[in-house]
């Protein structure tokens, strides 16, 4: 029995069709047509304690809906989810005590008060023992570098500062699971790095199970070993980052640089010319040849001054995986 167990989870929404123009709006007052949108379709996965998983998918794929069902806010249409021994949506309050949630576009902080006030609130809400609360406060203030703005009203803080505070309060009660829904949205490079490092240390030191949804593949590469990809409510991939690369691998790119004019391009089935500039080529090589073989062959054929091999970035792989899914018929 795994720690988090999700089985055939489905969530449907009824959406009222709105028609064009004022006339349409008036008409819809009397008669309204509904369409059913399946936000989450038959998703199953299981997670062990202490795992750190990236949950990715394009906008509207059903990521947040899944997280909301796991945190007990939304009730699934069918299927089950279990966190520990608790069914979250049936036992919302019990479940809430052992999870921490951060929604990147929402804040749990008191708008008019300093962060320390929200800290107090959470101390009481979760009945955190005083000693441990003190220790956690210090730990997260240090880890997320929050000392400077702990006593400023929240409305005067920057987005990054608020995000750090939201992550800290989600963790003050030492939850067993942490759900992060786009925690790096709108953050600058430095803040993102601080956050990723913090997440790694939290996972290592406190053995917190973390589910992270994001659109920033660098987050995933930096933090997660495992990846679950969904699109249009369905699961497309579940496995390690390495397997993900192999499954969707489509070769690598090679950049050849030349001193003078470019030599004539020889058409070949194993290479594709992606880009031609004044002094360089960008060449795509298929997955069937190794980088070594391709390098030797290209050097012999064209004699470049410099040669760079670049592995395909996760981001590009993901983009292709989404595209592949979109090409397939909806209910394949």
């Amino acid at each position, binding site marked *: 029995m795994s720690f988090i167990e999700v089985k055939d989870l489905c969530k449907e929404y009824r959406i009222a069709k709105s028609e064009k123009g004022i006339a349409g709006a008036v008409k819809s007052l009397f008669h309204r047509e509904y369409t059913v949108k399946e936000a989450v379709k038959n998703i199953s996965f299981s997670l062990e304690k202490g795992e750190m998983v990236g949950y990715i998918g394009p906008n509207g794929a059903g990521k947040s809906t899944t997280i*909301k069902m796991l945190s*007990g806010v939304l009730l699934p249409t069918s299927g089950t989810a279990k966190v520990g021994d608790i069914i979250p949506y049936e036992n919302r309050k019990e479940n809430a005590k052992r999870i921490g949630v951060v*929604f990147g*576009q*929402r804040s*749990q902080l008191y708008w008019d*008060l300093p962060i320390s006030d929200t800290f107090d609130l959470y101390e*009481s*809400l979760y*009945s955190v023992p005083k000693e441990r609360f003190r220790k956690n406060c210090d730990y997260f203030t240090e880890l997320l570098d929050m000392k400077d703005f702990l006593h400023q009203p929240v409305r005067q803080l920057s987005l990054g500062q608020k995000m750090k505070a939201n992550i800290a309060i989600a963790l003050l009660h030492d939850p067993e699971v942490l759900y992060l829904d786009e925690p790096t949205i709108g953050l600058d490079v430095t803040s993102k790095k601080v956050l990723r490092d913090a997440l790694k240390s939290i996972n290592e030191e406190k053995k917190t199970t973390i589910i992270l949804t994001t659109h920033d593949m660098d987050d995933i590469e930096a933090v997660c070993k495992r990846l679950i990809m969904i699109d249009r409510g369905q699961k497309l991939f579940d496995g390690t980052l390495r397997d993900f690369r192999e499954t969707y691998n489509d070769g690598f790119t090679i950049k050849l640089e030349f001193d003078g004019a470019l030599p004539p391009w020889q058409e070949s089935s194993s290479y594709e010319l992606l880009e031609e500039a004044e002094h360089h080529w960008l060449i795509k090589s298929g997955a069937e040849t190794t980088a070594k073989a391709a390098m030797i062959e290209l050097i012999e054929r064209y004699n470049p001054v410099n040669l760079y091999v670049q592995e395909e970035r996760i981001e590009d792989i993901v983009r292709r995986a989404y595209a592949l899914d979109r090409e397939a018929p909806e209910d394949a």
Partner: protein
Amino acid sequence: MKKYWIVFKKSLKSELIYRWAALWRILGAVLEFLIQIFLWRALLGTEAHNGVSFSDMLLYVLINSFMMQLTHTNVAGMIENAMIDGTVSMELLRPISYKGYLLSQMLGKNIYGSLTATVPVLLLSLFFLSGAVLPDFVHILLFFLSAILGIALLFEVTYLFGLTAFWLQRCWFIRFYLYGFQNIFGGTLVPIWFYPELLKTLSYWLPFRYMTFEPINLFLMKTQLEQAWIPILAAFLWLVGLSIADNLIWRAAARKLTVNGG
């Protein structure tokens, strides 16, 4: 219990930030009080009508406005706002009952406003109060009991109707209905003392008169001790009935919930 206390405290503290808003509220409250007082002075003169004297009216206006202020930011509006922008999902993430959270939040938000609005008015009313008889100790105790029940009842009714926002998304109109019912059947504008028999009878069968009118009756000792149990029991029964109803509706609402915006 400690959880709810801290929600109350933090909500009060958030309110204290805006000092100018409080000042304007005081001004508004004083004006409203004066209007009502002069109106009743003109209507009643110096004699008692139907056994109601001017100083009775004064106390009536005072207590009524304090209790109404205490539920001024009403829960229905709070639920509606949380539904519109989706913050309801954040509130549900906390290990605390939603109803209890709303109640503490509402009281914290309003208590400051009620006090700032009432204390100046109370001082002002000392000029008008002459020959008023203060209630005896037992009546005061009963008044407090009945006032607490009244506020709970006010909260309960607004909460119950506010929950419809889970289906309708919007429920601002409910505020107007409630306000209207309170005015008519609760006697918050014109006391039920002056009502025709039919309306008076009708008001006994609805929860609204037990919110502010009955507590005031106790304070003014217009309800005899032997009869005091009637409005208190009625308020209590309404409270129990409405709690059961809102519990059922809450369960259906949680099932129905959709969260707006991502």
